[in-house]
């Protein structure tokens, strides 16, 4: 039963990846928890809850499902849907305070851009412990006395996730384009669908090539963001491969002709562009090219830094190292930073902040309040 539900959740949520799918909030007992059992928290995106439940099967603990409006942890915390209020609410209304004797709650690390550990402590008395990025590392994290390895802290874009994104991207687009073509140019529908799905898979299968190209270049740009040009070059490359594949198939089936190739080329060039328009925005390791705030840079005021290592602990890109002698944080991998804002939001002594391209500083209070981060300019300007 639970396996079936897991399967349905995976299929459905992959196809409809861009639509929030909420599930019930509240406390879930995993195994046979007692008063000393660990308390974990996650969002109420259905797929996330199913995956976390599977990852921690066999461990006696409590899982709190907090209201994130059915959006996954990362998007919800950076976008202002999984907030302090969600956590405070679930701690106070779920009855967990009567179930356990301790006051330690393990939050997913990716929630650090939206939830402030300090506020949770002040308002509820609960200590926030930042767990690993991925649920499958939770068992090891618990065994290791709540210590994270650098690997557990890092966000990745593995093959499995790349395949999921291909499906998630190809499905709605083929639905829309397929429907339009069905009424306008029924003949083109099948070729267009074939092109959409293959281009989508090709793009994400070959994605490491894009990373390599972009990473080499972004060492040279000041804020480390790959440029639209990279996306364009890569799209052309993917397009080329696709045409090559089409030619091979046509050759093998004996249909190869210039007209045929040209026709495929025409269909696919537009689709390649549509699919890859925001290639970087589709990945968890780059920022979308469409956001105004992609040009922010992060700065440390080392005089204020107290060497608490919080930034190192919450950064999903492992940008920080500690200078053990001076007992301060140093940013060693600035070009890897994706501006999620987690380090700034959590720094207890306000030693971190963003600087805009025009030189203006964005102070930590503003970033915390308006969730100003890679998801965009959320600070309102009221005229």
């Amino acid at each position, binding site marked *: 039963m639970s396996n079936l539900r897991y399967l349905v959740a995976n299929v459905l949520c992959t196809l409809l*990846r861009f639509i929030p799918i909420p599930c019930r909030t509240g406390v879930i007992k995993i195994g046979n928890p007692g008063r000393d059992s660990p308390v974990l928290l996650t969002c109420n995106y259905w797929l996330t809850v199913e995956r976390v439940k599977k990852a921690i099967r066999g461990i006696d603990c409590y899982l709190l499902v907090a209201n994130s409006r059915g959006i996954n942890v990362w998007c919800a915390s950076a976008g*202002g849907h999984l907030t302090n209020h969600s956590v405070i609410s679930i701690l106070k209304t779920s009855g967990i305070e009567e179930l356990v004797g301790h006051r330690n709650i393990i939050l997913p690390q990716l929630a650090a851009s939206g939830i402030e550990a300090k506020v949770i402590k002040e308002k509820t008395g609960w200590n926030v412990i930042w767990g690993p990025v991925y649920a499958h590392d939770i068992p090891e994290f618990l065994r290791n006395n709540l210590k994270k390895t650098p690997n557990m802290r890092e966000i990745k874009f593995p093959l499995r996730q790349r395949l999921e994104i291909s499906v998630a991207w190809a499905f709605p687009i083929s639905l829309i384009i397929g429907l339009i073509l069905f009424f306008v140019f029924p003949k083109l529908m099948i070729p267009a669908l074939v092109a959409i799905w293959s281009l989508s898979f090709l793009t994400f299968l070959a994605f490491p090539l894009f990373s390599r190209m972009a990473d080499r270049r972004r060492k040279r740009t000041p804020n480390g963001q790959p440029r639209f040009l990279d996306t364009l070059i890569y799209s052309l490359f993917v397009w080329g491969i696709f045409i090559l594949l089409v030619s091979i198939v046509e050759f093998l089936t004996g249909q190869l002709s210039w007209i045929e190739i040209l026709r495929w080329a025409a269909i696919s060039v537009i689709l390649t562009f549509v699919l890859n328009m925001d290639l970087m*925005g589709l990945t968890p390791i780059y920022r979308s090219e*469409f956001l105004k705030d992609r040009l922010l840079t992060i700065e440390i005021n080392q005089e204020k830094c107290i060497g608490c290592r919080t930034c190192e602990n919450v950064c999903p890109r492992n940008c920080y190292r500690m200078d053990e002698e001076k007992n301060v944080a140093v940013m060693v991998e600035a070009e890897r930073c994706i501006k999620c804002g987690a380090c700034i939001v959590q720094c207890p002594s306000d030693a971190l902040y963003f600087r805009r391209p025009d030189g203006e500083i964005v102070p930590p209070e503003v970033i915390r309040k308006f969730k100003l981060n890679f998801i965009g300019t959320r600070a309102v300007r009221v005229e």
Partner: protein
Amino acid sequence: MCAYVLMRIFESSPKKYDWGIRIITLGKAENVYDSLASHVKSGQRVLDIGCGTGNMTIRAARRGALVKGIDVNPEMLEIALAKIEKENLSDRVELHEMSVVELDKEESESYDVVTAVLVLSELTTHELDYTLKEVMRILKPGGLFLVADEVVPRNRLKRVINWIIRAPLLLITYLVAQRTSHPIKNLPERLEKAGFIIESIRVSRLENFVEVVARKPMRETE
């Protein structure tokens, strides 16, 4: 990240919130605010739960009440603040970024009126129960709880019609305002169960939207 482009285009901005509310109430929002606000009297202490961009807060303040507006969204509060300053109501209004689960910090029997427009439907069931309990506590005896919200129609036929109308509407509100909602079942009963006396109910024709005026009972000794 996570293809936020799509989401971004329709990002939840406070201006769109007002739009979302208009769509949900089928353009009757202004009406709803005005009719509920008419129960507020000058000099009363009012708490506006989920004040959003201040629509109810401002109406209550215009009638001379002292209003505290709370909301969890700092951007909406920023807009509300600007509107309030523009109307010169700042001395009668205070706004706080605060959620319903922090109502336990409010003093018992300290408000004449509590309002909640289109906010109870955004709460989880646990939060809703918690809120009703706390509102009961912080209202003065005889105080009013003014609620307007989406509800599930009782009549089965209307429930079906409502569902058919709502499906596209929900999609639009979601896309425009990123606002999803879960109509409440048995709202009047829930209020009664929490100890309120229902003074009046106005139900929309499709039974999908209600305005309720509920009262906290006077103390029995009085």
